[in-house]
């Protein structure tokens, strides 16, 4: 080994000495010919040519010892490829970086989108799992996946020998551990539920048929997430007694990770047996009228036995019709035996996959759009590499021709070129792997998903993405390695060994075409991303009307069925507010039943002006109503524009009833929102209640968002809490440290009543973010992708254009020799380089407008098909890059003495 190494070193030294001697001889000759020594040395080097290439070629003539030929051949090829890549560090860095970043960004984006949009319910064989649904009226397409409890029992009975059938009903209730009570999302399920979905326990046991018995003990199964978050993954949780709805219940198991149930989008926290739920009166239908067929609260899941799918499908309709015939449905009036008859329902079953896909159609559309954008970024990254390879290939054709002329076989050259791009691809892949890992760490987020709920976004690398990424890597090797390799080595060796031939300065048409498309793709991508920019800007500029920066919110839901009536609620609210006022750091605290942004169910009320003669108003309108404590305006930061806010004298039972209207509300009723409205009377009829009451308007408050963030379509009337009661109550605390205030809110509620659950609590920005979070994620992902694409394109464009223009130094030399001025040269270069960029821009802008027109159909928000601002902004960075990339080399070329340019380039 050592001897081989010495031999090799000796060989390299000899080769170096020999070439040095050649240079020395040549320099001597040139000096004799009249050149200065420095000039002679420079010239001699140019004449000698690509020394490293020739050294390589010399080394290749060395004999290889036969018994280690194969590995040595491979090693030699790898070594050569590495040397050549190292000799072009910028190309290598950029090609591998471009590929790596492109792959990393797209895999991450895909994983995030996948986690945000396509969360799977985690059941086994979802295609074999069916959901029963009915349409309210036969023939209508509005399917509803719920039937009444008695309907479910009858259905289950008729399918006993053909399918496993289970029912589930989602509800929410307070779950208490040793110290605190928290509102959880629960499903009350029949014993067959876990067998139907095909999910076993991660710990302990799941519910089974034996839990259906009316006298079975009260048990529950925790979700894996609840177990982890609430109980710190404590295995000793099995057998522990918790309290739900004030009743003891024993934890018997933990569901597996990834199974999120069917209760809510955010995932179910606990599953309790149906028998227990009924006994403990934890859900409305069960507790009031368990046998009422008009209360549809049971979602029926079924898994047909193998081979029985068609039988079950065929029988659904008949069974359903039989039920509707036996128990004719009537329009519910609340009074038994009255009401007009309803037509029979339509019945069907659909696989879980179909049922959820139909629900999420719009989300899926947006998701596909995003995945489309992801693919475009990869296209940009790949076309970057293609362009670079083409541009580099033109320079290398000289080297390759030399080697062909000296007898290297075409196969050998192709192998080497492919090896080079393979190494670039591997480097890109490694880079992508590392970057993706880092990005996925960053993308692990707790997301508010509306109503203050938080779900954990856990993007993981999807198998499908890895396959896709591998396919792209392979394709890049083939397209960017094999393609140019074959092209470069094609045909007979042209007799090109002289320095004058070989480096053709004229860029190939293929390179221009590819540049054009790259620019077009980036432009399109940006125009589409501009939609998202608009959304973000609108969102950022929007003022909800509530000063939510320093606000903490907690929601408590009172339950009349457990004796938590208006008086009790008021006691608790007053107690909590008193505690909060005594807490250091809380500037103001208030409560309201129903709030803006749909945090709780906000009651509706019909508001009618008494003096209907009023000037131009509608006189009677449905408003959202907020029964509030007087401090609410100060706490929420809602200014009073006329009159006065509610005060504590208004908020006592028996006080003269008063109200504050929002500006919009005042305008709708009275046609104006100024002081002239003050003192006028309106009747208020709360939703569902027959009685009306007369209240006097004492103030007008600035408008706020009402139903959702960003919506301001409805009027709002604030009344004192003593006047109305609604079970969903929000408690607000204004503090310089809203995070700490959230804790204060929680503990104040806990101290007021141990069994009362805080259903959600958090800082206002998180709580009120609502469904826009998904949009924001999507926007962020899209924007970063577009930004990356632009970045890659700019670098790619610069690399290609500057290389192409530099290579035309010789042509510029000829032009200058023929009398062109430096200015003309610069113009020539700009025309050369800007042509394809401009063409690409026009193409991309047109494509972008088309895509926007197509996207408009899938989106709720209005989209301008032609967004002039975006059209004006998008081309700027690309054009600027192209200008710089053309101008700099052209300026350099224009400075070169034409003689030198002709001789040396």
């Amino acid at each position, binding site marked *: 080994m050592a001897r081989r190494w010495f031999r090799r070193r000796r060989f390299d030294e000899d080769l170096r000495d020999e070439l040095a001697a050649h240079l020395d*001889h040549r320099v001597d000759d040139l000096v004799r010919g009249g050149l200065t020594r420095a000039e002679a040395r420079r010239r001699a080097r140019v004449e000698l040519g690509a020394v490293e290439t020739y050294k390589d070629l010399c080394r290749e003539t060395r004999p290889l010892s036969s018994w280690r030929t194969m590995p040595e051949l491979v090693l030699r090829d790898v070594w050569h490829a590495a040397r050549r890549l190292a000799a072009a560090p910028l190309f290598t860095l950029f090609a591998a970086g471009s590929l790596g970043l492109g792959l990393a960004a797209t895999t991450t984006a895909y994983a995030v989108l996948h986690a945000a949009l396509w969360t799977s319910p985690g059941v086994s064989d979802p295609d074999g799992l069916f959901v029963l649904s009915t349409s309210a009226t036969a023939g209508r397409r509005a399917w509803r996946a719920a039937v009444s409890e008695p309907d479910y029992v009858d259905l289950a009975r008729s399918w006993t020998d053909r399918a496993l059938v289970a029912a589930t009903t989602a509800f929410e209730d307070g779950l208490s551990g040793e110290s605190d009570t928290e509102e959880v999302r629960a499903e009350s399920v029949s014993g067959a539920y876990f067998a139907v979905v095909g999910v076993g326990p991660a710990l302990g046991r799941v519910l089974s048929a034996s839990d259906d018995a009316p006298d079975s003990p009260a048990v529950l199964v925790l979700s894996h997430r609840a177990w982890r978050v609430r109980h710190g993954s404590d295995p000793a949780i099995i057998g522990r007694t918790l309290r739900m709805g004030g009743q003891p219940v024993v934890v018997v198991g933990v569901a597996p990770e990834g199974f999120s149930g069917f209760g809510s989008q955010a995932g179910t926290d606990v599953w309790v047996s149906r028998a227990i739920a009924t006994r403990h009166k934890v859900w409305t239908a069960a507790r009031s009228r368990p046998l009422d067929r008009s209360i549809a609260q049971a979602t029926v899941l079924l898994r047909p036995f193998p081979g029985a799918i068609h039988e079950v499908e065929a029988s659904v309709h008949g069974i359903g019709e039989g039920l509707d015939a036996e128990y004719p449905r009537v329009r519910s009036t609340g009074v038994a035996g009255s009401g007009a008859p309803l037509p029979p329902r339509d019945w069907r079953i659909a696989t879980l996959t179909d049922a959820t896909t139909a629900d999420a159609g719009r989300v899926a559309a947006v998701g596909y759009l995003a995945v489309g954008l992801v693919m475009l970024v990869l296209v940009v990254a790949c076309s970057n590499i293609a362009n670079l390879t083409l541009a580099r290939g033109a320079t290398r054709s000289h080297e390759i021709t030399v080697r062909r002329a000296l007898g290297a076989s075409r196969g050998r050259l192709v192998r080497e070129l492919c090896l080079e791009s393979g190494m670039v691809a591997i480097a890109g892949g490694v880079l992508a792997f590392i970057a993706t890992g880092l990005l996925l760490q960053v993308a692990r987020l707790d997301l508010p998903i509306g109503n203050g709920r938080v779900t954990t976004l856990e993007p993981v690398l999807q198998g499908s993405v890895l396959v896709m990424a591998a396919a792209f890597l392979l394709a890049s090797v083939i397209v960017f390695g094999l393609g140019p390799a074959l092209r470069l080595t094609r045909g007979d060796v042209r007799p090109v*060994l002289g320095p*004058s031939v070989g480096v053709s300065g004229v860029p190939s048409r293929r390179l221009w075409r590819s540049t054009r498309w790259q620019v077009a793709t980036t432009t399109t991508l940006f125009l589409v991303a501009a939609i998202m920019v608009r959304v973000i800007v609108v969102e950022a500029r929007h003022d909800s009307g509530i000063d939510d920066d320093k606000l903490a919110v907690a929601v408590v839901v009172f339950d009349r069925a457990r004796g938590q009536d208006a008086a009790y609620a008021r006691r608790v609210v007053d107690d909590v507010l008193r505690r909060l006022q005594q807490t250091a750091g809380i500037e103001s605290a208030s409560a309201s039943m129903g709030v803006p942004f749909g945090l709780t169910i906000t009651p509706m009320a019909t508001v009618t002006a008494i003096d209907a003669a009023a000037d131009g108003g509608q006189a009677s309108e449905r408003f959202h109503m907020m029964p509030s404590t007087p401090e609410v305006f100060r706490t929420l930061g809602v200014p009073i524009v006329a009159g006065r806010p509610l005060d504590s004298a208004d908020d006592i039972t028996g006080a003269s009833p008063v109200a504050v209207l929002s500006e919009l509300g005042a305008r709708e009723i009275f046609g104006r929102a100024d002081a002239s409205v003050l003192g006028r009377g309106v009747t208020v009829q709360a939703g569902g209640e027959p009685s009306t009451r007369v209240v006097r308007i004492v103030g007008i408050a600035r408008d706020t968002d009402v139903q959702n963030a960003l919506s301001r379509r409805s009027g709002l009337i604030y009344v004192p809490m003593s006047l109305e009661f609604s079970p969903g109550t929000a408690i607000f605390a204004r503090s310089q440290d809203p995070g700490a205030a959230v804790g204060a809110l929680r503990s104040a509620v806990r101290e007021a009543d141990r069994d009362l659950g805080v259903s959600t609590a958090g800082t206002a920005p998180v709580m009120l973010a609502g469904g826009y979070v998904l949009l924001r994620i999507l926007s962020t992902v899209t924007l970063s992708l577009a930004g990356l694409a632009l970045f890659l394109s700019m670098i790619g464009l610069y690399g290609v254009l500057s290389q192409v223009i530099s290579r035309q130094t010789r042509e510029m030399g000829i032009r200058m020799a023929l009398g062109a001025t430096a200015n003309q040269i610069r113009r020539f270069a700009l025309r050369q380089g800007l042509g394809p960029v401009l063409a690409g821009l026009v193409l991309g802008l047109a494509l972008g407008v088309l895509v926007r027109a197509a996207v408009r159909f899938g989106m709720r928000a209005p989209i301008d098909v032609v967004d002039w601002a975006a059209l004006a902004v998008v081309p700027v960075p690309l054009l600027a890059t192209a200008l710089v990339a053309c101008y700099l080399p052209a300026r350099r070329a224009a400075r070169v003495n034409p003689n030198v340019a002709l001789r040396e380039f």
Partner: protein
Amino acid sequence: MASGPAGLVPGTLELLILKALSLGPQHGYGVLLRLEQLTDQDLLIEQGALYPALYRLERQGLVDTEWGISENNRRAKFYRLTASGRRRLRDERNDWNRVVAVMARALDAKE
């Protein structure tokens, strides 16, 4: 120079080198000068391209090498034709002449 410097038909560089060395041992640069002489500077060769060809000839045993001192007192590696190199030159020259004659006849034939 009616048509400019001629390119090189693949494989012919080695033949030319053998010819240049047949006039006596020479170092790399000297081979180059001799080639320019032999071709009346009508053949453009990138100078570096010479060396891989020389190394290949050495590998085939057609030339021998040894380090020596050049005419202007520089250490240089000298190439010398071996017996088999001489034989190869003769064979190749015959082949070449035959090919050229055939090609010339064919191309000059009356149309």
